[in-house]
């Protein structure tokens, strides 16, 4: 048990192949193929009802797929995949615990059930999840944030190689969200645990994930790597021009712009020298390029998400929209 810190090889740790789940006439998950490699923090992003929880339930063999299968750590997941479960920690939706037992009893019981003999592992996980002062409290009397920590502690006590979390910050206040994020970042950085994390909160996924999969209406629409994600979050200056080729030549030759992108819809996006917006605009006009408009904007995963999944839903991308300036003439 326990992953090697910092490793990020190409080994597939979680693999779903043609994973499908139909509930009567509802196609909850449709032909889902995804791969999570060792050491990755995979953000599984989707609106409410997109199929995230159903996918996770199938991963953990809590429900049976209509078609397809899941492999975790090379083992086909089935109800009694005992060997695989020894290496997986999970928390699905709400943290499960026995309210009439104390925090310590809940964790000790998990240790017993996992067959762990060393009581030191309890202390370790208590420290990591910062539950020390609540050990003798009944679990039902904990705050939502601490209940979530307890759920995480139960999932982590056996030092799993893979951590599968369904909406781990659901219902938490901002401080609670930060706390859980800090723990997960630490786990990823120090233990190299592969984390599969579902969420409908974009900002959360963006801050944690090294790769993001976007699911919508049961289908995986896109997977985005960290680099692409970073690129997507860059601020840019966009010119709407009549002649993109000439505009690009002017920007590069006359203004020394090195980072820019030409789009087919007649837009040129400039990523460096943004403080010289007026100068660049003037240079284009002076070189005879017809500039129909310009705007300073930010490319966000949020925009991309909304574009992919359709209309913006108040429940879906829960991230504050950053300022976007409209077309300026």
């Amino acid at each position, binding site marked *: 048990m326990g992953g090697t810190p910092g490793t990020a090889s190409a080994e597939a740790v979680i693999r779903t192949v043609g994973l499908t789940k139909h509930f009567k006439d509802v196609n909850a998950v449709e032909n889902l193929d995804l791969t999570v490699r060792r050491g990755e923090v995979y953000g599984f992003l989707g609106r409410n009802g997109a199929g995230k929880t159903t996918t996770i339930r199938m991963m953990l063999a809590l429900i049976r797929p209509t078609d397809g299968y899941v492999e975790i750590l090379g083992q086909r997941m089935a109800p*009694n995949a005992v060997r695989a479960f020894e290496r997986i920690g999970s928390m699905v939706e709400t943290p*499960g615990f026995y309210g009439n037992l104390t925090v310590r009893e809940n964790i000790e019981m998990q240790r017993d059930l996992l067959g762990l003999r060393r009581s030191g592992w309890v202390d370790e996980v208590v420290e990591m999840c910062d539950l020390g002062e609540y050990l003798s409290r009944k679990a039902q009397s904990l705050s939502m944030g601490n209940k979530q920590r307890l759920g995480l502690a139960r999932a982590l006590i056996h030092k799993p190689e893979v951590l599968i979390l369904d909406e781990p910050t659901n219902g938490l206040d901002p401080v609670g969200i930060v706390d859980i994020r800090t723990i997960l970042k630490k786990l990823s950085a120090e233990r190299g645990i592969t984390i599969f994390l579902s969420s409908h909160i974009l900002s959360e996924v963006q801050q944690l994930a090294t790769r993001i999969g976007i699911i919508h209406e049961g289908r995986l629409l896109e997977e985005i790597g960290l680099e692409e994600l970073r690129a997507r979050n860059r601020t840019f200056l966009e010119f709407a021009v009549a002649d993109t080729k000439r505009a690009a030549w002017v920007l590069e030759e006359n203004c020394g712009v090195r980072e820019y992108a030409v789009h087919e819809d007649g837009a040129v996006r400039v990523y460096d020298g943004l403080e010289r917006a007026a100068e660049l605009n003037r240079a284009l006009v002076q070189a005879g390029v017809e500039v129909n408009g310009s705007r300073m904007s930010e490319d966000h995963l949020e925009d991309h998400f909304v574009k992919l999944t359709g209309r913006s839903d108040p429940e879906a991308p829960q991230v504050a929209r950053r300022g976007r300036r409209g077309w300026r003439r």
Partner: protein
Amino acid sequence: MTRALKAEFLKVRRSRTLLWTALVVAAYAILSTVLNRVLLGDPNFAKSIATGGPVFQKAVEAGFFELNWANQLRVAVQGITGTWGIMLFAFVTVYVFGREYKDGTAKNMLTLPVRRETFVVAKMIVVACWVFALTALSLTLHVIGLALLGVPGFDWNHVGSAAVDALEVTLLIYLTLPLVAWIAMIGHGYLRGMLFSLAAVGVGNGIATTSLSKYYPWNLPVHLAGASWLPLAPADLVPASYLISIALFAVGVALAMRHVDTADNAA
């Protein structure tokens, strides 16, 4: 198995439900003992009961309303079959099984590196310990109550006989419980299991005087313990009666195990 069993006992050890079920049993034992002492101590009571109709007259003639240890201990055993036993034992079962789904802990339990069937067996062992402990508590309180109230006719043989009857009756009810457990798991909570038990008891009352009754698992305890108002004899039961109950137990366990292995356990 030991690990699962230890965990299952820990789950109920601190539960208030354990205390509440014990209180229900204690309340019945105290009330029935005191009430019968007061009512049956009145020589006119049996006469007034006898006017209730032929069934009551027959019961009075058979000596069911005489105040003595034999009758009072029979009342103790009949309490399990009629007043509280079947429904309370069903409640214990739906609590042990349905709680995991109702409180959202089933998904944790079923993703542990422990064979899922182990939990079904461990839980059934916990249910067995719980219901037999309630039976023992009931009988003990009855004995203490009767002794304190100075009821005449004490004989250790009566106590021994009542203990054997109580254990047999509890065992017969226990044989019906895996089916209740399965329904609690399907229903992801308490309600369906309780409604099923209520319906099963209702059907049992409906067919109590028919020839089918001795084959109906929920009526077997009543046949064994008798009923003050409806004298029934253990002789009514035939080997097939017991075989049906044992088969019901096996089917219930198999269904519960199949459920954790194959069905939707998402709660």
